[in-house]
């Protein structure tokens, strides 16, 4: 497209004086101030405001209810309906993880185990939550649908060690997930 030349508007003398616009600006800011003091800010109700402005005050008020389905929170491992670890330690997530937050030590399932046919399960599975960028690639790449991004967003710790989620913690967050692929069990 060709360059479109736009002429600046010619201002009238009143507009050039600047004082009128200044006064209008004061009215706008004052209106916002008064509205937010009265709890009548636009959108205050929809945002679940605490009564001052449109802000939700965090620890007391949470936005969990209005969280979208596609929200990507902490990654976690899940078990299937028979409490079997879904993860077969194929290490694809470890490979794809952009910030290299995942570390897996694969282990074999002993032959006397009822799930011996699955052959492998992780011995250790650690996600470093300081490194994790919540991109969701691990979830996308997992062939067993064993790793999911849950809606947990309050991940905190007072040391680096605390911020590394080990296998136990990951299953605790993930819990059980039913009704997905039933590749290994008899339900088919």
């Amino acid at each position, binding site marked *: 497209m060709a360059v479109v*030349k736009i002429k*600046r508007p010619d201002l009238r003398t009143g507009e050039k004086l600047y004082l009128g616009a*200044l006064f209008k*600006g*004061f009215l706008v800011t004052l209106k*916002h101030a008064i509205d*937010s003091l009265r709890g009548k*800010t636009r959108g205050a109700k929809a945002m679940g405001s605490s009564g*001052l402005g449109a*802000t939700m005050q965090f620890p007391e008020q949470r936005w969990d209810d209005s969280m979208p389905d596609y929200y990507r929170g902490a990654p976690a491992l899940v078990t299937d309906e028979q409490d079997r670890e879904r993860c077969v330690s194929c290490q694809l997530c470890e490979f794809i993880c952009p910030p290299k937050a995942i570390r897996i030590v694969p282990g074999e399932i002993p032959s006397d185990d009822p799930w011996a046919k699955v052959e492998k399960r992780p011995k250790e599975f650690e996600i470093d939550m300081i490194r994790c960028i919540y991109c969701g690639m691990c979830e996308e790449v997992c062939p067993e649908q064993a790793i999911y991004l849950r809606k947990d967003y309050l991940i905190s710790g007072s040391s680096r060690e605390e911020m590394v989620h080990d296998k136990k913690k990951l299953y605790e967050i993930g819990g059980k997930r039913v009704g997905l692929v039933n590749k290994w069990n008899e339900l088919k």
Partner: protein
Amino acid sequence: MELLIDLAIILAKVIGLTFMVVLPLVPLSVYFERRFSAIIQDRVGPNRVGIPLTLFGAKKDFHLFGLVQPMADGLKLFLKEDFTPNYVRKSFYWLAPALTVIPALVTVCVVPFGSPITVNGEEIKLVIADLDVGPLFVFAVSSLTVYGITLAGWASNSKYPFIGGVRSTAQMISYEIALGLSIIPLLLYYGELNLSKIVQFQADHGWLLLPLWGHAEGPPLAEKLLFLVPALIAFVIFTTSIFAETNRMPFDLPECETELVGGYHTEYSSMKFAMFFMGEYAAMVIGSALVVTLFLGGWSLGFGLDDSISALPFGGLIHMGVFMAKLIAFILFFILVRWTVPRFRYDQLMRLGWVIFFEAALINVFLAAFVIAAPDLGWISTIVGLVLLGIVTGGLIWVLKTSEPESSPNSGLLGQS
């Protein structure tokens, strides 16, 4: 003995008014700044800091609406590492923060905080130094603040602070003129340079911008109402210049974050930064105190009530409360302006100062003189004078218009083809 008592009174005034009235106003205005700007922007602002009762097993914290927040900020700055970069000019680098705070606090001494109170049959004025050159003293001392800023910029030995310092100097010089010229009409009207007497005059004859009472003696109502015209012009020029002098928002070019990182205090940290911060807010407090004193009646409550309040045993303290209320209201206005008016470009700032305010203040001086002198001059001279003034004003506007560079409808990249 007499001398000792006098000294004790002066010391009490200095400690009481500077350290117990003005200095607490600095954190208070920081708090208002944060809270009020939050309210303007539909936010909440700092409302948590208070007494952490939950630490001692109570159910709820006592949050005091976050009033303790500035103290927490101060504590944080106090405990931070005081880092001195090793390429700075050390002595000036250390001197600069003090040079911004001290002038701002020194100017407090001429501000009248209330009407005189009587203790033990002795009248004590609520002014530290009842100087007969009040506004001149304030201008002289408060313009020293710029030394601190310029020194900070230069001593930091780094680009952006240096630009900030230079800008600050230029800005100060440009607006000092408009500032000084704009109050000449008031001085003509009051016939007085002593701030206490100026306030007393306003208490007796009505505030400068609200002359609605006390018409029995002194200038007649018609003259006061007529004087409102030059007074309003002076008010606009003076207030705007105060904004420029205190480096507040529409004119905060010395420290604008978007252009100069942090301006003159980029290289400062910890308590030295806090002192710049304090100096800035103290200047804001003093600036609004000056506007309130000169234009809005100082400690006067108005409506002819002031004499009866002064007659009360501690009426002076009530007047002090009135003054504080006005002061805080004006500080809130400062903040409102900050979130309303976007920052000026540097050349616009200079143009406003030199081309518009300087001339307007100068014309305003003559206008005020005509208004005051009209009863003595008689009709013919006044009209001739006003016509002459009108011609001069028109000529100035014409010069202003013709000297404007011819701007093409599209300047910049698009206008070149």
